[in-house]
């Protein structure tokens, strides 16, 4: 009969209308600024620089090798290398970026910089609330803004960060063992040939390179 479908439809919408007041699970809206869903672990927005220790600038893992700058497809990274080495958070002497700028209005979030970095120094952030009133200077991030702690990295990408931390720790122990072996060998050589200073110079130079490799 004509009109029965309309009645059925009206009953359905009435059920929805009343149900939305009585049953909370019907209202799936997340009222964003006040409520928010937990961020997905493999979400990514723009890169940031990881630092260890307390001081964001001293503790940067970045050694200004400029691989990311060269690999970046839209060329949004600009690095100026420091002329001299400076002590890092552990007191070791290292090269550091004098300038590390990243223009997030150019960046296309491709993650290539993260993949090419040999030092696990640049990682993808998940922060998406980046609106700004200055569309030029506001989106050109300097190293002070880019530097974020390893703890933050572990918080936003727990699985990935755990894997990176384990690898870095393994590398460190391997480097320490190697340094110790070198030192022992050096001591043995030194005790064997005390009279020959030229022969002792070579292992000494080798030992000096170890801290750089550890980083």
């Amino acid at each position, binding site marked *: 009969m004509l009109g029965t479908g309309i009645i059925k439809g009206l009953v359905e919408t009435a059920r*929805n209308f009343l149900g*939305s007041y009585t049953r909370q699970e*019907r209202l799936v809206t997340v009222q964003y600024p006040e409520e928010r869903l937990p961020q997905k672990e493999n979400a990514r927005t723009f890169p940031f620089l990881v630092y260890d220790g307390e001081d964001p600038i001293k503790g940067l893992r970045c050694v200004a090798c400029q691989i990311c700058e060269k690999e970046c497809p839209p060329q949004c990274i600009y690095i100026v290398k420091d002329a001299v080495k400076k002590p890092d958070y552990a007191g070791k002497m290292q090269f550091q970026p004098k300038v590390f700028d990243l223009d997030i209005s150019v960046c296309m979030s491709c993650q290539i910089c993260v993949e090419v970095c040999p030092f696990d120094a640049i990682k993808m952030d998940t922060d998406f609330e980046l609106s700004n009133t200055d569309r030029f200077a506001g989106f050109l991030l300097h190293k002070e803004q880019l530097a974020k702690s390893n703890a933050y990295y572990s918080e936003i990408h727990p699985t990935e960060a755990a894997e990176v931390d384990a690898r870095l720790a393994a590398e460190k122990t391997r480097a320490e063992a190697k340094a110790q072996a070198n030192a022992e060998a050096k001591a043995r050589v030194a005790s064997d040939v005390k009279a020959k200073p030229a022969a002792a110079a070579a292992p000494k130079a080798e030992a000096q390179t170890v801290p750089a490799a550890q980083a």
Partner: protein
Amino acid sequence: MTNALDQLFVILKDWVVGWFPAGWQPFVGALLDAMAIVAVFATLFALTTWLERKGLGRMQNRYGPNRVGPFGLLQPLADGIKALTKEDLVPRAADPVVHFLAPLVLVVPVLLAYSVLPFGRNMVPLPGCDAGVLLFFAAGSATELAIFMAGWSSRNKYSLLGALRAIGQMLSYEVPLILSAVTVIMIVGSLSTEKIVAAQGVYHGWLPGWHVFTPWGFAGFLLFLVAATAESNRSPFDLPEAESELIAGYYVEYSGFKFALFFLGEYLGLFAVSGLAITLFLGGWQAPLSFLTWVPSWFWFFAKLLPFIALFIWLRGTLPRLRLDQLMNFAWKFMLPMALVNLVAAALWHWLGAGLARWLVSAALLAAAYLALGRAVSGAAKMPQRHYQLAD
């Protein structure tokens, strides 16, 4: 006391008018009426936009507006400020005079239609108008002109298509709209809205003698409701402004407050036609039960108007838009014959005299017509089997 409350606005108006010299009094009275109508129904329009967005949201399991003010109640105010501060664009190719006039031509006749609606006892803005219903329909028809002006002057194909659809739809549905109202005029024997309301002021026991409680009145009411929905371009008859097909139809080239005026005109038209439905079929300002007559009459008018608004929102949240051929089929193959049968039913009701016979005869006639016409219009069209030369 009860009487004073009932006549509160009439007394208030007479008191204000009394301050002016006798020669001015009719003009001041008319001005006061117009101001009251604009203030009350514009407020109701603002409230309805909020109710509609809230109601539709809840039907779709959303919250609806809830940011501006408590429960989003100040949302209409924010919308109004937005509409006022938007740039008023006129397309270079448009006819600027007609483009400017169209929203005014829409709103003014709609407001004119309010002049014959009885909002309460002794509360007709144009008292003693013998052709009230006729004036209402005449003013209501002028909106078609405004819509075509808007669609034509914009020089935009979407506008023009929307306007053409609007003209086709409104002309088609105006026929059943007026024919379903004619039944009431036949029975009451007057075009005056005041007399139509007075005729429904009788009570059978404590039940009201409204026209909707008769077979022809019930059928007429439903026909009037469907035709009124189509006349006011409400969903499911919103083809002229079909969002998904024509962007906004005839007012696609309007921005700023002219756009808001189209909205205002549309909603004011909806309230006016609901008010006429109340006047014709639901007893106007009469109380629904005989022991409730102490409640002020103007309260009953608005108490009847709000369910109408709720019903239109409910329908909009439920029904998908009709196709153009379905729309026309429904108007000419169902609505028009049904309205004509309803005229016959009303005539039989009058000539058979009081008794059970007239109930049975007119109800049976209308039910038979409904079933037969309904089957004819809703049955699937006999289409030959299609053969796809390339797909098979």
